[in-house]
C-alpha cells in the first residue's frame, strides 16, 4: 500500500517504550521520520529538590527511573559529597559500587522482557524476571526496600550491612549468573530473534557518540566508551573488568553487549564484596548547611551516562539541581539517524525501540 501517512504511536501502545508518544511519518510501510511527544510524566523533580533541604532532597533524586534507581542515587550522593567536601569511608564506596551494579543487572533483566516481548519470545523473559526478583529480595534484605532504597546518602551509606552479607551476596551472583546464561542461550541463540534483530537499527559507535548517546548503544557499535574506565568514580579504579563491545552496531549487538555487561557486573560485585566488612565506619556526618560551591558527578548507569550538577549558594537547600539523562538522544537523534539511513518498517520499530532501551520518565522528569 503506497502513499504517505501520519500515524500516532503511543503512549498507550504496547510496542511503545513506556509512557511516551511518537508522531510517525510513513511512506508505505517504511517509517521516514519519528517525532517525539514527551511530557506525559513531567513532575518537576529538579524544582521539587530545590525546594527541599539537603538532608531530605536525596529522597527524590532517584525516583524518576524505576528500573535503574541506584545509579541515580549514587550519582546524587557523590555530587553532594563534593558540595559538602567530605570523603566517605572506603566501605561506603565499595558498597555503592555493589548497589549500582546490582541495579544495572536488574535493569538489564527487565529490558529482556521488553526485547523478548517485541520479538515474540515470551518464555525466557519470565526466567529473567526471576533473576530480577532475587536481586530485589537482596535489596529488601540489606536496605529495607525493594525498588527505591534510600541507602546511599551524602557522607556514605545509611546503615550497617547485615550479618552474612558477603556469603549471601556471592551466592546471589552465582544464582543470577546461572539464570542469565539460560536466558542468553534461549534469546540470542534463537533463529527468530537473530532474523528480527540482525541488521536492524544499525548505528556505529562514533556516530552515536556524536549524536549524544552513551552506554550500550555506543558500545554495541564497537566503541570502548565507559565512564567507569574513562573517569573512574567510587572505587572503579581498584577493580578489574572488561568493556564488552559489539561489531556491527545493530540491535543484536546491543543485546549481546547488555548480556556481556551483566557478567562483568557480577565480576565487579565479587571483587567489591570482600572490601565491605561489618564493624567498619560506614558514614561521615555531614553538616545541615552546605558551603557555597558546586558538585558534579558522572556515573555509568544501565542506559548510559548520567550527569548530576548541584549548585550550592550556602544555606539549607540546593540552589540548583540539574540531571542529564541518557535517554533523550536515543529517541530523538539516534532514532532519526536510523530511520534516515536504513529501511525501518513499522513492524521493526518496536524492536529498534526496545533495543535502544530508553526510560521515558528520565526524559520528562
Amino acid at each position, binding site marked *: 500500500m503506497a502513499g504517505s501517512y501520519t500515524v500516532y504511536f503511543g503512549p498507550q501502545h504496547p510496542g511503545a517504550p513506556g509512557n511516551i508518544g511518537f508522531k510517525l511519518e510513513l511512506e508505505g510501510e517504511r517509517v521516514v521520520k519519528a517525532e517525539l511527544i514527551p511530557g506525559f510524566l513531567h513532575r518537576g523533580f529538579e524544582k521539587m529538590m530545590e525546594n527541599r533541604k539537603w538532608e531530605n532532597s536525596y529522597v527524590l533524586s532517584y525516583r524518576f527511573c524505576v528500573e535503574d534507581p541506584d545509579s541515580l542515587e549514587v550519582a546524587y550522593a557523590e555530587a553532594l559529597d563534593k558540595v559538602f567536601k567530605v570523603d566517605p569511608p572506603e566501605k561506603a564506596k565499595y558498597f555503592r559500587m555493589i548497589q549500582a551494579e546490582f541495579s544495572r543487572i536488574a535493569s538489564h533483566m527487565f529490558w529482556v522482557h521488553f526485547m523478548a516481548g517485541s520479538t515474540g519470545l515470551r518464555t525466557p523473559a519470565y526466567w529473567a524476571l526471576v533473576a530480577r526478583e532475587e536481586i530485589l529480595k537482596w535489596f529488601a534484605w540489606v536496605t*529495607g526496600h525493594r525498588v527505591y532504597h534510600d541507602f546511599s546518602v551524602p557522607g556514605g551509606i545509611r546503615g550497617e550491612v547485615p550479618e552474612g552479607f558477603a556469603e549471601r551476596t556471592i551466592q546471589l551472583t552465582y544464582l543470577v549468573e546461572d539464570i542469565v546464561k539460560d536466558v542468553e542461550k534461549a534469546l540470542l541463540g534463537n533463529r527468530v530473534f537473530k532474523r528480527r534483530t540482525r541488521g536492524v537499527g544499525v548505528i556505529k559507535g562514533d556516530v552515536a557518540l556524536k549524536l549524544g548517546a552513551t552506554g550500550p548503544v555506543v558500545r554495541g557499535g564497537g566503541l570502548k566508551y565507559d565512564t567507569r574506565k574513562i573517569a573512574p568514580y567510587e572505587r572503579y579504579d581498584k577493580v578489574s573488568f572488561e568493556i564488552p563491545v559489539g561489531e556491527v552496531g545493530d540491535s543484536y549487538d546491543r543485546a549481546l553487549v547488555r548480556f556481556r555487561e551483566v557478567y562483568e557486573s557480577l565480576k565487579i560485585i565479587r571483587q567489591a564484596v570482600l572490601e565491605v566488612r561489618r564493624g567498619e565506619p560506614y558514614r*561521615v556526618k555531614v553538616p545541615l548547611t552546605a558551603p557555597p560551591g558546586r558538585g558534579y558527578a558522572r556515573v555509568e548507569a544501565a542506559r548510559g551516562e548520567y550527569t548530576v550538577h548541584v549548585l550550592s549558594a550556602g544555606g539549607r537547600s540546593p540552589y540548583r539541581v540539574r540531571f542529564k539523562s541518557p535517554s533523550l538522544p536515543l529517541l530523538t537523534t539516534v532514532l532519526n539517524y536510523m530511520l534516515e539511513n536504513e529501511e525501518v518498517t513499522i513492524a521493526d520499530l518496536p524492536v529498534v525501540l526496545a533495543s535502544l532501551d530508553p526510560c521515558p520518565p528520565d526524559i520528562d522528569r
Partner: protein
Amino acid sequence: MVLSTIVKSIEYMLKRPYTRLVPAKSKPFKTERLRGAHILDMSKCTGCSMCQLVCPANAIDMVEVEGNYPQNPRRRFPRIDLHKCTYCGLCVEYCPFNALYMTSITGFELYTRDKKTTLKTPLELSKGDPSLITVRREMLAVKEVKPGG
C-alpha cells in the same frame, strides 16, 4: 538451539512455581529491616516537631492530644498520613528522643479506598504492636566519625 530451549523450558516448568498467592496461601514478604508503618512512643516524644521538619513528603503534622504528659507540656504529637508517607525512615533517623519506630506492616496491608483510615492520630500510632518493630534509630543514626573516614 530451539530444541535445547524447549528442554530448558520443560526444566523450568517442572520447578516449583516462583510466584506466590498472597495472602491466600502465603504470608506477605517480610525482611528484618523492612520499613513500614510507624509506632510512636508517647512517653518519650517531647513534641519538638523534628520529624515534621525532615519529612520530604509532608506526611507528618503536629496535633494536640488530651492527657497528661510531663515531658511534653504542650501535648503536641505527630500525626502521620501513611498514604502520603514514602517510608524513607528519615523521621526515625532524625528523632532526637528515639520516640519513633518503624514496623514491618507495609504494602497491601495498608491498602485502603478510604484515605481517612490511613491518617493515623498519635494515639493510634502508639497502639502498634512493638513485636513487629524493624527499624530503630540506632540502626540509621550516624556514628561520630571524623571527615576523612
